[in-house]
């Protein structure tokens, strides 16, 4: 087991109001899996990604990464985990502006205390791998959206993480660039990388091997286990119908 969440809840406080973004979510993900997290906005899928990737603290529950209980790690230890074990791909790319592709990809290595010459060598190799060998010195403003996202993927892979979290990786891209990114992610998974991806686009979710649907901060359907029994009775019929038709359509397309 690579990643395990046990009864994880996340409550935001907006003044007096408590928002239950995640309600006792439990999930297990094995090495080499490609999981797509789906659901409408506000369903908790993004919060799930943030909490699972240690960008945000849990309110209650436990998270195990490679059998280590990590949700109680302090800030510095969590920074180390994010640096070495986790790779991020964001919808907004989040590259440093006015900074070359090479420097952007090197950033995690900088915090991993890797020497300069080694940083250059690895960053260059990684950019070549995502097909940007000729764009090493370009700044984000000089790159297309698809190229920027490829730089971001190179950055996510640079420290050879055991798991990659992708938050709507194609959300800001045209369909051609989106296809490129989808192919890169598919290839990475083929090479054995574990990927957890949040998306609301059916055709993007289809590249994943396992589909997980969120509703109201809970998992209501998981490819691996079917309908969430505990959740089933309070699932609205129209939600159930929507998910079922989605699954049917996606299976047909495959």
């Amino acid at each position: 087991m690579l990643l395990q969440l046990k009864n994880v809840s996340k409550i935001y406080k907006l003044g007096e109001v408590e928002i239950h973004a995640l309600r006792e979510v439990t999930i297990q993900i094995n090495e080499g899996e490609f999981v797509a997290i789906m659901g409408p906005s506000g369903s908790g899928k993004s919060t799930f990604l943030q909490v699972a990737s240690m960008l945000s603290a849990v309110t209650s529950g436990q998270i195990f990464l490679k059998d280590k209980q990590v949700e109680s790690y302090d800030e510095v230890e969590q920074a180390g985990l994010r640096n070495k074990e986790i790779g991020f791909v964001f919808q907004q790319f989040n590259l440093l502006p006015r900074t070359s592709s090479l420097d952007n990809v090197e950033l995690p290595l900088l915090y991993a205390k890797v020497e300069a010459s080694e940083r250059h060598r690895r960053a260059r190799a990684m950019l070549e791998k995502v097909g940007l060998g000729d764009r090493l010195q370009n700044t984000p403003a000089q790159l297309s959206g698809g190229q920027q996202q490829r730089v971001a993927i190179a950055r996510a892979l640079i420290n050879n993480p055991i798991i990659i979290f992708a938050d709507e990786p194609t959300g800001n891209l045209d369909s051609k660039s989106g296809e490129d990114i989808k192919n890169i992610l598919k290839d990475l998974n083929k090479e054995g990388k574990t990927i957890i991806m949040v998306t609301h686009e059916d055709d993007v979710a289809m590249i994943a091997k396992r589909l997980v649907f969120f509703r109201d901060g809970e998992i209501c359907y998981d490819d691996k286990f079917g309908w969430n029994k505990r959740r089933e009775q309070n699932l609205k019929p129209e939600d159930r119908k929507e998910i079922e038709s989605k699954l049917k359509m996606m299976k047909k397309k495959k």
Partner: protein
Amino acid sequence: MTFADTTKIAITSIFRNKGRALLTMLGIIIGVGSVVLLTSIGTGLQKYIEEQFASFGSNVIYLVPGNPFGDSGGFGNPEDAIIERTKKTLKLSMIPQIKRQFREHIASAAPMSLFSGQVQYKITEKKATFIGTTEELEKVLNNKAAKGQWFTKTDVDSEKRVVLLGDTLATELFGDVDPINKSIKINTVTFQVIGVLEKKGGGGFGGPSFDSYGYLPFGTATKLFNNDTLNEIAIQGRSKEDVEPLVSDIKGLLIDKYNLTKEDFTVFEQTQILNTINSVLSVLTLGLGGIAAISLVVGGIGIMNIMLVTVTERTREIGLRKALGATPNQIMLQFLIEAATLSVFGGSIGVLVAFLGSLAIQRFFPAAVTLSAVLLAFGVSAAVGIIFGVAPARKASKLSPIEALRSE
């Protein structure tokens, strides 16, 4: 991430906002520049006065009539001081008496009386101050002849009509002509110029300088000007250690042997005056530096202000760096170094500006940039950057990665 890497990031981000960085640094530049420049004026003045005193001979004790310093011990009312100086309590005969009594401690001693007279060479005529003295003044004041020579004991004893000219006076009277053995008229009496003294400098603040005096044998002068007031006896001790005991010994001798009271004369050494002046100048330097330091603090607040803006502007960058593995300390260090770089760089420019400024001032006024002032200003500016950088840097380090990433 090494310290060098962090520094590189900090400097890179400063260079991305050159205009803003420059304006921020301006506060520090002005602050450090004015601290260094103003203290350089103070210390320059101090150095200048010390040099002046040193050029008037070392280990010198002055014996003057009355009490020119006034009751309070400082320099009293100048009019009183002049009246005190013309009291006729000092006698020429005191010199051999004092010298005999303290033979082992005294190297040389000479009387000095000041007179004002009219001097003329051919058609050049001017008013000048003359000092009536003996040949020993050469040693006491370390005042050698650059051309010709000093008058001798025989010249003094026989009251010969010879004169030595200060450098400035010689130039004013003779221009390019060699003054040696030329005849000049002092109050219509003919004198022979036998020497020109080395340039002493001094008198820079509008007062008379030793360079603009003429020097006459004592007896010749008292007869010429018909005035035998002895204004001053300058006594040179053999060593630094002799000076203090000599001051009290001479006081005792004058009271015992000449029936004088304490109010009739004053014995002082030049370090005493020097110390008084120095303490005044130190306060002045401190005051000037203190006022200038206010602008340094204002400059520091400018840095804090711009760093707070920078942190707010770069919240997303901070969030991203944290997401990619930066620890709070690394983020804090990055912004601290940025603030410190701004202030140290600004401080360096400030020191440079102050140095150039003091070079310009030196043409009119003594100014000296000291290493300690530079180091202090440098240290203070670095401290200002760090102190005023802490608050914004802490703010940056405490941001939660996801909230920082989501900010627009």
